[in-house]
C-alpha cells in the first residue's frame, strides 16, 4: 500500500480542480468508460446468449393460449400445482423460520456449539444428488434405515413412506429442509453478527432480554434480510427439480410431483415441448411480482450478506 501512503504524504494534486460533485454523478470519460464496458462485456455476452435468448425463446414457444386451456383440463397438472404450492409454501417458510431460531442458537459462544455448527453445515457441502439418493434409500420399501431404527429402538413399525401422497410430500419437504436449512442458517447468523453489539447491550440495560429483545430489537433489524431470503428462496425452490425427482421420484404414481418435473415430463416423455414450456410459464404470475419486489428491496436497502 505504499502508493497510498505516498498519496497521503504528497496530498492529491488534482483535488483542487476536480468538481466536488457526488461521485456517481461524475461523468465517465474515454479510457475509463472503455475499460468499464470491457469489464461488463463477458457477463453481458453470457446474459444475452444463455439467459435472455432462452427465456425469449421459451416465451415464444408458450405463446399459444390453447396450451394453457389444455393444462387447465389436465387433472395431473392441477394436482402438481397443489403439490408445488405446498412444497414451496411450507418448505420455504418452515426452513427460514427454523433458520432464524437456529441462528440464535449458534450465536451462543461455546466451543461445542461451534463443533455442532461444523457438522450441521455438512448437508450444504454434500452435493444434492448423493444426499437425496441416500435419503431415498433411507425411506424406501418397508425396511429402510429409518424404519429399521424405529423398529430397533422403539419397537414401532414405520410406515411405507412413499405409498401415500401426503407422506411422500412430507418426506420431500423434510429432505429439502435437511439440505438447505444450513445455508440459510449461516446467512442469518451473518446477518445477526452484523447487528451492532451496542444496540443489544442497550436493550439489555433497559431490561429487554430473551423473547422481548428478540421481538423488539433483533427481529426488526433482521426483517429486511429475512424478507429478501424468503423471496430469493421461493424463486429457487419453485425451480427445484432435484429434491422431488430423487427423494420420492413422484411416488406414489406421480402424485407428489412438482411443476419443474411435470414440465420436463411433458417435453421429453410425451414429446410436447410447448406444453412443457407452458407448464413452466404458468408460474410467472407468482414469479414476476417476487422478482420486482426483490429488485426494489436490494436497490433501496441493500442486503447484508
Amino acid at each position, binding site marked *: 500500500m505504499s*502508493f497510498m501512503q505516498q498519496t497521503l504524504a504528497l496530498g492529491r*494534486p488534482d483535488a483542487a480542480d476536480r468538481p466536488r460533485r457526488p461521485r*456517481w454523478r*461524475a461523468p*465517465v470519460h474515454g479510457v*475509463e468508460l472503455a475499460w*468499464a464496458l470491457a469489464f*461488463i462485456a*463477458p*457477463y*453481458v455476452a453470457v*446474459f444475452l446468449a*444463455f*439467459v435472455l435468448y432462452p*427465456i425469449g*425463446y421459451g416465451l415464444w414457444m408458450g405463446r399459444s393460449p390453447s396450451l394453457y386451456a389444455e393444462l387447465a383440463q389436465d387433472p395431473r397438472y392441477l394436482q402438481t400445482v397443489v403439490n408445488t404450492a405446498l412444497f414451496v409454501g411450507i418448505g420455504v417458510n418452515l426452513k427460514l423460520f427454523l433458520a432464524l431460531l*437456529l441462528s440464535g442458537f449458534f450465536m451462543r459462544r461455546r466451543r461445542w456449539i461451534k463443533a455442532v455448527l*461444523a*457438522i450441521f453445515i*455438512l*448437508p450444504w*457441502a454434500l*452435493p*444434492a*444428488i*448423493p*444426499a437425496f*439418493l*441416500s435419503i431415498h*434409500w*433411507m425411506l*424406501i*420399501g418397508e*425396511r*429402510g*434405515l429409518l*424404519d429399521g*431404527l424405529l*423398529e430397533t429402538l422403539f419397537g414401532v413399525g414405520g410406515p411405507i413412506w412413499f405409498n401415500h401422497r401426503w407422506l411422500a410430500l412430507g418426506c420431500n419437504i423434510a429432505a429439502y429442509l*435437511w439440505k438447505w436449512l*444450513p445455508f440459510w442458517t449461516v*446467512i442469518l*447468523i*451473518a446477518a445477526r*453478527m452484523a447487528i451492532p453489539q451496542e444496540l443489544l447491550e442497550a436493550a439489555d440495560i433497559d431490561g429487554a432480554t430473551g423473547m422481548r429483545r428478540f421481538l423488539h430489537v433483533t427481529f426488526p433489524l433482521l426483517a429486511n434480510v429475512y424478507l429478501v431470503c424468503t423471496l430469493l428462496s421461493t*424463486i*429457487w425452490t419453485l*425451480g427445484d*427439480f*432435484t429434491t422431488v425427482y430423487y427423494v420420492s421420484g413422484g411416488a406414489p404414481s406421480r402424485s407428489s410431483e412438482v411443476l419443474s418435473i411435470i414440465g*420436463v415430463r411433458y417435453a*421429453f416423455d410425451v414429446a410436447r415441448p410447448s406444453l412443457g*414450456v407452458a407448464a*413452466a*410459464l404458468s*408460474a410467472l404470475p407468482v414469479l414476476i411480482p417476487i*422478482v420486482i419486489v*426483490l429488485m426494489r428491496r436490494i*436497490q433501496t436497502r*441493500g442486503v447484508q450478506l
Partner: protein
Amino acid sequence: MSVALAPGRRPRRPHYRLRQAFVEAASVLLGAVLVIWSLLPVYNMLLIALDAEGDTEYAGIIWPPEPSFESFKAIWTEDYWYLEHFWHQFANSLYIGLATMALTVLIGSLASFAVGRTRLRKGWLLTDAALLTYVIPASFVVIPFHRIIHSYGLTDNLIAVVAAEVAFATPFAILILQQYGRLIPVELDEAARVDGASPVQIYWRIYLPLMAPALAAVGTYALLLAWGEYLYQWLLLSSTRSMTVAVAIEQFFDSDEAPWNYMMAVAIVYALPPIVIFYGLRRYMAAGLTRGGVKG
C-alpha cells in the same frame, strides 16, 4: 404466584440458576438432535456402501454386519459394468465444476467491479438485469435452452453445461460481491488512480486481494451448484464420452441386479471433492459472509 412471592423478592436467585440449568440442558439436547439429523443420511450412505451384497436397505439393519470395502475397490479398478468409465466421468464432472467455479468468479468479479467501482452510469441496470435471470427458474428454461444449444452447435459438449451453470450462478455472485465490495473504501481506488494505476491494475492489485473472502464464498457456491445439478447434464450430454457422474449414477436404477452398494460408493466418492473444498475454504467463507477483515 406473584402474590405468594410478594413478601420477599429473595427466591429469584435459585430460580434463575434453575433456569440457566434448564437452558443448558435444552441446548445440549438440541445440539444432539441436530448432529443426528445432519449425519443420518451420511451414515446411511456408508451403511449401504460397506455392505457386500448391496441389499441392506431391505433388511432393516442399522449396523453393517460384515463391512466390506469391495465396492470402493470396484470403483478404483472400474471393475463393474456400470463403473467402466467412472474415472472418465469423474474427470468430466471435475471439468464442469472447476470451469464453472473459475468463470463465475472471473465474470462476476469483473462485472461487479465495473458496476461498483468505476463511475459507470446506470451500472445498477446490470444488477437488475442479472436478477431477471431468476424470473424463470433454471429448470423451467431447460426446454428452450436445450433447443438453443443445438443451434449453437454445442450438442453433447461439456461447454454447454458450463455455460448454463455460469449463467445461473453469476447473478447471485454479482449480488454478493457488490454487497461485500461496499465495505472496501473507494479512497483506495482513487489513491491508486492518482498514482496512475489503470483500471486493470486496480482490479488486479487492489480489488481482487481485498475481495478474497467473498470470492471464496462465491466460488464455492458456484462449484456446489454445478456439482449438485442434474437436469442440464442429463439433457445436454448424451454420449458415453461426455457423460458425468451425476448422470451415470442415475443409471444404476435401470439395473436388474440392485447394485446399491456400488451406487452408494459412487455417491460417497462423488461427494468428497466438494466437501474437501468446502471445509478448506470455510474459514475464508465465514469471513466473506460476515463483514470480513476490511473495515472502512
